[in-house]
């Protein structure tokens, strides 16, 4: 028993000097010290803590970079979501656009059953979503409106705004030309801070930024609806421009005063007759070459 206790004390490094002497006397002493000495050779390699710490810090740095890589797919998902939400939002708030080409007319029924006839080379835009709150339209070109009764109906053009409550009117907004003709009810026209209320038959015409007063008309609808363009004291340039839109042709003019005033009309269904209609009254001659028409003094 004595022996075992001594060995145990030796194992826990608890021998006092007296006990150590006793331990030395044990027959096991030599064997135990030899074993202990030999065991020291099994000591694992000393860690060079500075080098190891360096290694660890490098590993930690690359690790945190990897965590950034983990962010990448997350960002991708977020980007896709953003695109989806964005395009959904964009398409639902997107305006409905209607555009006509050369020689094309379009009938449009608006969400409130108002009717619009769009003349050639014109665009009309409105928003279906907000239609119930405000009847707003953007017009570029010429259109004839039959507005259903209801809230304020406003047409925005580059030249000014036209607002009505329920009526029939025509708007023509082209280069150097802004014309509104009221056919029924009343129409409010706003142009460059001036505003005017039109009664049936009255018209509002701006030519080259100048207001032109015109007599009342007895027409109940614009001519172009019935495939005819009619002009009363209009500069010849506007006539040619309208002709180009209706027939998809281009004019070249020589020695002609395009500001000369023209009254008359041309039909939209026969090029030759139409050409005669706009040339004979002014004593002009025309030559046709594919889509190019040149005008000359006779």
């Amino acid at each position, binding site marked *: 028993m004595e022996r075992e206790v001594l060995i145990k004390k030796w194992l826990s490094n608890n021998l006092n000097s007296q006990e150590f002497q006793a331990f030395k006397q044990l027959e096991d002493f030599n064997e135990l010290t030899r*074993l202990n000495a030999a065991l020291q050779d099994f000591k694992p390699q000393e860690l060079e803590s500075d080098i190891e710490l360096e290694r660890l810090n490098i590993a930690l740095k690359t690790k945190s970079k990897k965590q950034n890589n983990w962010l990448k797919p997350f960002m991708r998902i977020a980007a896709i979501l953003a695109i989806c939400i964005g395009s959904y939002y964009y398409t639902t708030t997107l305006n409905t656009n209607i555009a006509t080409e050369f020689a094309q007319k379009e009938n449009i029924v608006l969400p409130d059953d108002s009717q619009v006839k769009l003349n050639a080379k014109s665009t009309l835009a409105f928003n279906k979503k907000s239609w119930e709150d405000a009847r707003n339209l953007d017009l570029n070109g010429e259109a004839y409106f039959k507005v259903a009764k209801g809230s304020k109906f406003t047409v925005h053009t580059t030249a000014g705004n036209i607002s009505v409550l329920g009526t029939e009117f025509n708007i023509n907004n082209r280069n150097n030309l802004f014309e509104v003709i009221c056919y029924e009810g009343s129409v409010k026209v706003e142009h460059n801070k001036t505003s005017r209320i039109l009664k049936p038959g009255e018209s509002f015409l701006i030519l080259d930024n100048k207001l032109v007063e015109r007599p009342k008309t007895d027409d109940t609808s614009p001519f172009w609806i019935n495939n005819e363009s009619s002009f009363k004291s209009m500069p010849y340039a506007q006539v040619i421009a309208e002709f180009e839109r209706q027939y998809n042709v281009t004019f070249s003019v020589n020695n002609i005063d395009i500001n000369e005033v023209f009254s008359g009309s041309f039909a939209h269904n026969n090029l030759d007759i139409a050409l005669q209609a706009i040339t004979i009254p002014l004593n002009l001659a025309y030559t046709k070459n594919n889509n190019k028409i040149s005008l000359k003094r006779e």
Partner: protein
Amino acid sequence: MPKKLHNNICEEHLFNSLFKKHSQDLNNFLHYKFGERLNPKDKTQEAFIKLWENCKKVTPEKAKSFLFTIGNNLMLNETKHQKVVLKYQQTKPKHYTNETPEFVLEEKQYMKKLQIALANLSEAQRVAFLMNRIDGKKHKEIAEVLGISTKAVEKRIYGALKKLRKDISEL
């Protein structure tokens, strides 16, 4: 209640001092338990990486046991209960100038026997015994690391010694 200086170990200087304090012990522990074929050095590194990643959750007092548990688990993920063979240093500094060939041979044989005997120890015995003998750890320290009582540590160490001596003499 005394206020604790640090709630976690996310500060770099704190973490570095922990590394200097515990890396060697952890490395040796893993070495004794699993041998060096499974690279205790790398597992030590990995355990410290895990510690850093969890630095917010680990208080300085818990860091040591966290490290040893993680290191142990990392090893267990890889071991397939293969026999652990510990290497001894082959290039032994010469203590004796007048070695006879018989003495050298006997010494070599003794080391081989010791190596085999160590491999034959149970894992629990070997870890406690080598931590005590080579690292000079106190019973209490070993008990903390292994999560057992000091009495059990004493028993394991003494048992290991007895078995080693028996094996060596029989080999």
